[in-house]
């Protein structure tokens, strides 16, 4: 072996070792600061982790754009929903007076809230855009209880990392990391454009996450579960969406 190839081998070895050490360090930092999404495995996991990690670092505290009243869309599009089940129809007949949001999991005080009880918590209204992953969008005013007000009421345990939310629609659930769950614009929405939230738009209770795409904004919310791991929910990918091929994080 001549000296040139030995030097190249040595340099290559140092570069490779430094690279591996760098990757290991990046991995532990990413885990420490919650920069790895539940659907980080497989062929697309690398890109998904880069997107989620980068956006979490860049956008942790930033607010979604809010618009003037004049920008509210006159023709919003509700998108398709499955026909309501009998349980929903029964609650609808009663004016949703018996609609309850159950909050459980890693919280100090599990609780159940009626819509009236949710409305007794501090309210927020915001004019933000709903953006579908397909490309279309509309702007509306959304009024409701910030999710963090509900979390403050039940007291998440220190190890809490995700808030899982379930819909009355069959097999429809999703989750948010704590940064998004505590974000001031993440809203348990009950009103739209100065009226009650219409059923096609998710009434009586919809999760509004204006920094993520429409499909994270699950309609007909009945239950929240606070957890430290998504492992035991569905296939452990963070929501039902990755089971159909869609990413858990929808900030892009």
């Amino acid at each position, binding site marked *: 072996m001549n000296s040139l190839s030995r030097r190249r081998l040595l340099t290559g070895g140092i570069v490779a070792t430094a690279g591996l050490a760098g990757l290991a360090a990046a991995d532990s930092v990413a885990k420490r600061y919650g920069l790895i999404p539940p659907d980080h495995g497989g062929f697309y996991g690398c*890109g*998904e982790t880069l997107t989620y990690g980068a956006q979490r670092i860049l956008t942790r505290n930033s607010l*979604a754009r809010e618009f003037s009243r004049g*920008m509210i869309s006159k023709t919003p599009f509700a*998108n398709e929903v499955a026909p309501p089940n009998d349980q929903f129809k029964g609650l609808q007949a009663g004016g949703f007076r018996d609609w309850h949001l159950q909050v459980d999991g890693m919280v100090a005080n599990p609780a159940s809230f009626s819509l009236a009880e949710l409305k007794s918590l501090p309210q927020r209204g915001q004019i933000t*855009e709903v*953006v579908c992953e397909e490309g279309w*969008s509309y702007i509306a005013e959304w009024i409701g209880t910030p999710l963090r007000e509900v979390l403050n009421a039940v007291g998440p345990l220190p190890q809490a990392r995700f808030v899982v939310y379930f819909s009355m629609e069959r097999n429809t659930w999703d989750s948010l990391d704590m940064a998004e769950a505590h974000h001031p614009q993440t809203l348990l929405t009950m009103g739209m454009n100065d009226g009650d939230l219409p059923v096609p738009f998710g009434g009586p209770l919809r999760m509004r996450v204006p920094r993520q795409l429409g499909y994270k904004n699950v309609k007909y919310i009945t239950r929240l579960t606070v957890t430290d791991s998504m492992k035991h929910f569905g296939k452990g990918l963070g929501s039902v969406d990755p089971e*159909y091929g869609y990413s858990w994080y929808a900030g892009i």
Partner: protein
Amino acid sequence: MASATNSDSPRHSVVVRVTHWLTVVAFLALLVTGIEIVISHPRFYWGETGNVNTPPLFTLHIPSSRDTVPTGYKVVLPDQNGWSRYLHFEAAWLAVLTGLVYGLYSLWTGHFRKDLLPERNWQAFRRVIGRYLRRAKPDEAEAHSYNAMQRAAYLTVIFVLFPLIVWTGLAMSPAFDAAVPAAVNLLGGRQSARTLHFFVTWALVLFLVVHVAMVVHAGFRSRMRAMITGRAPVNINEEEHV
């Protein structure tokens, strides 16, 4: 006749070759998945908002993968958006990181200045355009360096179209817009960003088509060999006569 090895001379550096082919992979993945995503809503708008209840700027006359979009076709294509979105953003990372490596390398080594900055006189352009119009083969110098038209085209792709496609793409991200509202506001709104992203894509596709056509015209085998092995024959037209 001289053998291939001793009639070759260095052409493209290893960084240029590796980043070139990585960009090819990323661009094709972005193009295919981008088309799939467009199919789920083949309508385009201008301004901030737009949906099936608002008049479009224009529509593509193709079937959609959503039955909520009025297309005039009875057929609804299968939904491919899940993996398309995953792959689109993964390939976007590959393109951006490759672009960063290429850009830093080219600044560091002077590749931009030496090989891509065109002469600042119109004669150089006129000469090349004249030759294109006569459909003549490239002259010897072009086996070892880019001509004025090539330089202008490559610089346009690197410094105009590539930044524009990344910018208009990021402007469609609701989280990115929360962090950098100017990214979308400067473009005139989310739907304008989407429409511009579509047009910049076609500009890049136009470049790709012309680029490949010129490679074929100049000598497909020698150009491909140069971009794979890094070496070009000293006499550029030699292999064509073999």
